[in-house]
């Protein structure tokens, strides 16, 4: 597993993912999205995300604060790894019926990407991202099952108020 190079100035956004809202449609129960997203799980070669009824996957990732996305690393096996990926920013509750809406970005994953080379996103489209939906349309081999090893998102946070830090002003 090659180590991923974090682009300068960016941080790994895994810390800003709102885990209670993460959803994935068409995943197999025993290989859920956490295997690909969560710290620790995603680096474990034995754990991966697998699709169920067919090869498409729809992943919804909300963030705890507004972020800017710079690049992403998506890795998977050669044959069953994803190929066509579409990203939608700030679209809530997408279903497979509206995946044909114009995406914020779409790209094809190459074999290099599957090994860990980051995909640079259209930065201008991801300046103000509250939630990200990843639609995986097909896989490299064209089979019925798509497998993902890891999804990492890199970017920066926009300075927003963290409600937990708000404290009552004491009387001076």
């Amino acid at each position: 597993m090659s180590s991923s190079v974090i682009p300068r100035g960016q941080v790994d956004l895994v810390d800003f993912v709102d885990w209670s809202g993460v959803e994935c449609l068409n995943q197999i129960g025993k290989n859920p999205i956490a295997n690909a997203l969560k710290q620790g799980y995603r680096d474990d070669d034995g754990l991966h995300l697998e699709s169920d009824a067919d090869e498409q996957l729809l992943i919804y990732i909300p963030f705890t604060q507004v972020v800017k996305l710079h690049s992403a690393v998506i890795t998977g096996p050669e044959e069953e790894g994803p190929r066509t990926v579409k990203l939608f920013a700030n679209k809530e509750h997408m279903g497979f019926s509206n995946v044909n809406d114009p995406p914020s970005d779409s790209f094809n994953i190459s074999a290099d990407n599957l090994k860990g080379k980051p995909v640079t996103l259209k930065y201008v489209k991801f300046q103000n991202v509250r939630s990200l939906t990843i639609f995986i349309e097909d896989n490299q081999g064209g089979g019925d099952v798509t497998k993902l090893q890891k999804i990492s998102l890199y970017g920066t946070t926009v300075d927003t108020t963290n409600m937990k830090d708000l404290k009552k002003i004491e009387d001076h």
Partner: protein
Amino acid sequence: MRPSPAYFWLVVYSPSNSPDSPIFANSILRRLAQTPPIAFVLLVASPWFSRSVLFILSSLDPSGSLRVCMVMSSSVPQATMICIDNSEWMRNGDYAPRRLQAQADAVNLICGAKTQSNPENTVGLLAMAGKGVRVLVTPTSDLGKILACMHGLKIGGEMDLTAGVQVAHLALKHRQNKKQQQRIIVFAGSPIKHDKKTLEAIGRKLKKNSVAIDVVDFGELDDDDGKHEKLAALVAAVSNNDNSHIVPVPTGSSALSDVLISTPIFTGDGEGGSGFAASAAAAAAGGMSGFDFGVDPNIDPELALALRISMEEERARQEAAAKKAAEDDAKGEKGAEQASSSNDATMSEAGNTSAVAIDDKRRNLSDDEAALLEEALAMSMDVGKNKSVDIADTDMSDATTEDPELAHALQMSLQESTKEPVSQSDMSKVLEDPSFVASIITSLPGVDPNDPSLKDLLASLEGQSEVSFFLRLELCKSLNRYLQKKVV
């Protein structure tokens, strides 16, 4: 004289990932505050575990003084679409009275079960035959709408299963609360003209969109065109971790709804489960053998509750009459007894977490009890003041004037129904003090402190630094036995 049993609540709370778990926690605490038991045990457990605990406890406790209430927090909210078959095949009377009516009963039951298990659940209705697939009610938690629609449904046409399922899926997609899980319940009564492959394709599409399905296979049961096979294939295609089921219902004497009650459609997917199993178990544990008064509390909760409340009231009235006849012994004890008999009435409800109606009835009952208590107390006070009394009454008034703590305790139990949580916690603290308890017992009229059995009781009390709830339980039981002996 009726012994006043000490009530001991066992609250088994099963939290889940449901966002309204705090609501249930609050309702439990509120209920406990209103009718405080002597003690309660809070078990945070999985549903499976709590059910087995309930079963064990109910079998261990023959005297019925253990009231067990199981409050399960709900499962994840669900949005359900029920697809009714109203084709010409439904005129058949093999399910009484007609297949369509049998379906209507089943629909009523399902709606009730769903909304009971979680107030956020919604149910919708759709007719598959007739002029075409029609959505009668979009998912709502208003049962009245659904029942009204069932009422006006006409028979005709042929059932279109694939279109029905697809329209149901669409209706669920546009549900208001996106956090609800999607579920379709199909009543497949007529033969199916689609082929297996089509059904499997639809099933896979449902699975992809995380929709679960339950199919009730009834009516035309011949396997010539493989109806059961096709439906089984559909369910297998949709099923993800066994969340979808097929229920074959053979023609027979029992109604469609009765057969359905024992199926996974009602008992849930094994997550939180519906409240039915819980309330049935609680009813059994509470000393009532499942269906009291011949009315299933699950089917008709209001009626069952009304019957139960009126039984309690009748019992309380008879009690009060008996007490007025045997005034001497009754007076001092009445305070504690009225309190616990009102507890009795309130706690004998099965684990119904719902309605304001129940709360109202409960409060009315406590008011009745409190009124009776006031009456009796007033009588005794008056009698004391007039001084033209017999000795027993004088004892009572003396006791009252001489023992301000006793008067205070009686006063507090009087105010019970109005000033609930605060006074109750005072009372329980007061009851913990062994010397106080001992003094109450000795000052009760009709109690002879020199009686050997009572002496033992007091001796055991002295030994304790704090009257634990077990001891209080024992205390109450033995006191009642003793006083019973005295009356008889």
